[in-house]
């Protein structure tokens, strides 16, 4: 991870200092490799666009420091760098889907599964707030398997406990009762947890973001 991030950072700096198509291709390759290494490292795609945008803003205020003739920092290069980042993200997803297709395995995002461990903050909320969040999620999602998992979460949170394995276990059991078996069951589990994750981010981020800020601060 460390060498790839360093190489992507270096490629971005080289491109900023003297832009060329070759350096842009190099930057594209390192962004792709970084995302393949770890999805969250995809933020590196925003590094060069952010730097160009900041430079454009600064040169507006400090006209004495205008870019040299060989440096083509402009709005056009900003849009080119954004396009490179977007194409890199799309290419990475295409590679992952291609590998899944080649190996004949279904594509599974495990973001929702990882998010179950993030739900530890619910036990620290007031009991009324815990119930309000979980009840509204159950009503909106209308999914019996997810309801079973959320009931488990509610039961644990009320006791001030949190065991993520038990939430996944409850969901897995409910899926088994619905007739899912084998690989389909694993895929369905991930899909349902991803659905819950998406719903939670769209509807209840206000409770989550203070916890995220606290974690960043602690780290």
């Amino acid at each position: 991870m460390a060498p790839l991030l360093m190489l992507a950072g270096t490629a971005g700096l080289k491109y900023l200092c003297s832009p060329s198509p070759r350096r842009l291709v190099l930057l594209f390759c390192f962004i792709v490799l970084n995302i393949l290494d770890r999805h969250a490292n995809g933020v590196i795609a925003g590094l060069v666009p952010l730097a160009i945008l900041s430079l454009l803003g600064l040169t507006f205020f400090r006209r004495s420091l205008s870019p040299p003739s060989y440096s083509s920092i402009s709005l056009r290069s900003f849009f080119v760098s954004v396009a490179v980042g977007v194409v890199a993200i799309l290419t990475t997803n295409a590679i992952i889907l291609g590998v899944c297709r080649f190996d004949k395995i279904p594509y599974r995002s495990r973001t929702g599964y990882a998010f179950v461990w993030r739900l530890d903050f619910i036990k620290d909320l007031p009991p009324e707030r815990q119930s309000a969040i979980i009840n509204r999620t159950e009503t909106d999602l209308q999914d019996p398997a997810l309801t079973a998992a959320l009931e488990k979460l509610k039961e644990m949170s009320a006791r001030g406990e949190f065991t993520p394995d038990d939430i996944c276990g409850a969901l897995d059991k409910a899926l088994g009762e619905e007739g899912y078996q084998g690989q389909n069951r694993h895929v369905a589990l991930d899909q349902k947890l991803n659905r819950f994750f998406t719903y939670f981010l769209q509807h209840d981020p206000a409770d989550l973001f203070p916890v995220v800020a606290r974690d960043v601060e602690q780290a």
Partner: protein
Amino acid sequence: MSFTPSLLAKDPFLCTDWLVKRISEPRFQPIQGLKTLSSYSESTKRYDASFYFHLWSFLPLFVIAGGVVIAGVVCILTAKNWHDLVLAVYSLACTAMGILCAVVSFIVVALLPRLMLPTLILLCFAVVVLLLRFDPRRSDQRAEGAVATT
């Protein structure tokens, strides 16, 4: 990847410690008799005193991030040419992306020290970018470039 009972019972193996706490569950009934799973092996304890694992503990990340931001702003204000400005802005962008990376990670999962590795790498890279301003070779190259253009 398939985990066989013999692999799970290897010491040290992180899954062994994970299993020790859950071995009483019915789903692990087939491997309940394994001797290694009767005690917690503390497979990571040997690294507790390792210098490498505590290399950055004396310097909190927010000190590095804050230092880069202050130094970056100072460098922007005192920049004498385009390259100095690029280096200062790029170091600030690296810091911003490093913090964003941590935020993205912690939206999905709870605090784990290893998730701060990309942030640490980008912050260290930002420091290196700031220090490039004092690279004498780069100054020489710039002077040569200026002579060549005139």
